[in-house]
């Protein structure tokens, strides 16, 4: 593979024997940090380089072109920018890192996130933040089906609309939808809570609308500030939570299953 260095490579090179395919940029015209051109650097090599970043380090992935599994399994408090569309599972299984996708993202962005942040500056496909145990996933655009499915304590904030079955079987954590929610919102929820700024097309099984308490407003306010979702009025959202009627299996509930 030919050496491809983007930015002024003056720092430690992490590349192949033929040259620094991956370099660190320190030039005044570029933000300091690692820059990796995915048109040249294989995914595996790029992810290895990201995982080697220390706390506080910065990196940029150029030409992502919808590649899958970008920046997965990171463990340090680094900052990674993906300059374009990301494919499946971007930032998945991550801890502590702060990842920004400057474009749309495919399935499962931020899936099984443990901590840190994944921000998508566009729309995202299905199963955003699936099973996320912690951390924050922000989608500035819209999200497709099953966003926040099986959520386990993480936070998902969507600036626009959410597709059907958002929050399906979500166990713990918070989902904020800045636009409208589709069919089956919060189906089979456990202890996760969903806030919707717009309309709700329909609720899922065992989900119900609950009164908004002061702590809900405060929680939404904090999220709005962190996400920059100025279009959301924290005091004017709908709170959806579990009615807890299906926590024990019973044949008399068969209409609900």
């Amino acid at each position, binding site marked *: 593979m030919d050496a491809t260095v983007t930015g002024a490579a003056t720092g430690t090179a992490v590349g192949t024997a033929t040259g620094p395919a991956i370099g660190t940029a320190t030039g005044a015209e570029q933000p300091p940090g690692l820059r990796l051109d995915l048109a040249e650097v294989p*995914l*595996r090599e790029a*992810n*290895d380089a990201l995982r080697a970043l220390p706390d506080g380090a910065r990196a940029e992935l150029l030409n992502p072109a919808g590649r*899958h*599994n970008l920046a*997965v*399994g990171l*463990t340090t408090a680094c900052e990674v920018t993906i300059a374009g569309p990301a*494919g*499946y*599972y971007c930032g*998945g*299984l*991550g*801890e502590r890192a702060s990842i920004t996708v400057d474009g749309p993202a495919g*399935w*499962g962005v931020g*899936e*099984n996130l*443990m901590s840190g942040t994944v921000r998508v500056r566009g729309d995202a496909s*299905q*199963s955003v933040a*699936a*099973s996320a*145990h912690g951390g924050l996933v922000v989608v500035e655009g819209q999200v497709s089906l*099953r966003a926040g*499915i*099986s959520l*386990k*304590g993480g936070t998902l904030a969507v600036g626009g609309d959410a597709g059907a079955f958002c929050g399906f*079987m979500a*166990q*713990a954590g918070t989902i904020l939808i800045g636009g409208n929610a589709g069919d089956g919102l919060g189906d*089979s929820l*456990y*202890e996760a809570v969903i806030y919707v700024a717009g309309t709700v097309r329909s609720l899922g099984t065992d989900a119900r609308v609950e009164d908004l308490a002061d702590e809900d407003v405060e929680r939404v306010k904090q999220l709005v500030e962190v996400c920059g979702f100025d279009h959301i009025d924290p005091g004017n959202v709908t709170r959806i939570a579990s009615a807890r009627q299906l*926590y*024990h*299996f*019973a*044949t*008399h509930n068969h209409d609900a299953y």
Partner: protein
Amino acid sequence: MYETNHTFPPGVIADIQERASEGRYVIRGMGARRRVPMFDDLLLLTASASRYPLEGYRERCETGTVLGTRNASEPVVLEIPITIAGMSFGALSAGAKEALGRAASEVGTSTTTGDGGMTPEERNSSETLVYQCLPSRYGFNPADLRKADAVEVVLGQGAKPGGGGMLLGQKVGSRVASLRTLPEGIDQRSASRHPDWTGPDDLRIKIEEIREVTGHRVPVYIKIGATRVDHDVKLAVAAGADVVVVDGMQGGTAATQEAFIEHTGVPTLAAVRQASDALADLGLTGEVQLVVSGGIRSGADVAKALALGADAVSLGVASLIAMGCNSPTATGPDGEVLDVADDYRRMGTRPGDCHHCHTGLCPVGIATQEADLEARLDPGAAATRIANYLRSMAMEVTMLARACGKSDVHRLEPEDLVALTIEAAAMARVPLAGTSWIPGTTR
């Protein structure tokens, strides 16, 4: 004169009347109880004039088994082709999980986590630990993923293919609830579909994600409940599986609706041959390994499974029985032998016939989360019992392999088998004993 009614025998009448009275159907543990074609319906053709046997108890017969050679830089290397299947902490007590790990390590094989994640006790006691990635993702996290020696993506289970799972509230104690991020005491539902992929093309990308996070170091298994075995094995391979695990309908469960246990899937005997033929069709025999589970009990079962194309087998229920499941006695507070027959009776069952894992009231401390019951299982003694059992099975396999003239148990082959019944002959695609007839294949 009473006439037997084959459509409504007394058991069926009692079942209907209980449903009518209580408004519920049967949920229970263990696996299928009905008689289906099984390994007992096959016989091994050991050596005589046409084959030359190896000397029993003298000449070496290899049992070493390597799983995951296709992509992983560190395949799983085992001393015997008998592994321990995935069973959850939650379904089983912490002591039972520890015992399985200790036993597996003692005999040089692997054990597997289960729904609910990896406990420190299990990791610490297991030399080789397979970490399951299940649809529920309960307790699944990248830190434990990196500690795994292999990853098993579970698509289904033989006792309930397509059915997801359940752990009834009496077993969802504080630690189990915490590990699964659920409220204590609820009837816990394990999803039947993964949350972030739907088909083999997606699964391929998911597996690549797992490889990225684990540094392409460990093998990725895909476990399927045996239904459409030919298609499913081929799709699992297309998705990138290094090892395919096929769980037949006799496979066990901690709690499942009886309608699933007795009426879904195909028998292990049929599944193993279909799976090995699927790998052969793809030209991947030996490159993608096949592990078979579901009702394996003895070295003879193992030998027959290997002869039909499995690279290894996996034990669930049998390993629990080895440690004391269904025993009339348990260990008392001071190490004394405790007669627990009354505890079985209180559940409406008896030692030797118990399938009440779902109740959480296991009298021998295996399938429970009750502290006083858990204390009835000594993990060290239980591990010794399991290890004894595994060793005895491994010796049986080598004994039979030697008698077939094989110096390696993996050289057993379909030609070493005949069937006792037409059904078994058709499923295993080996001749009916005393004939050269393979139903569906030869005339």
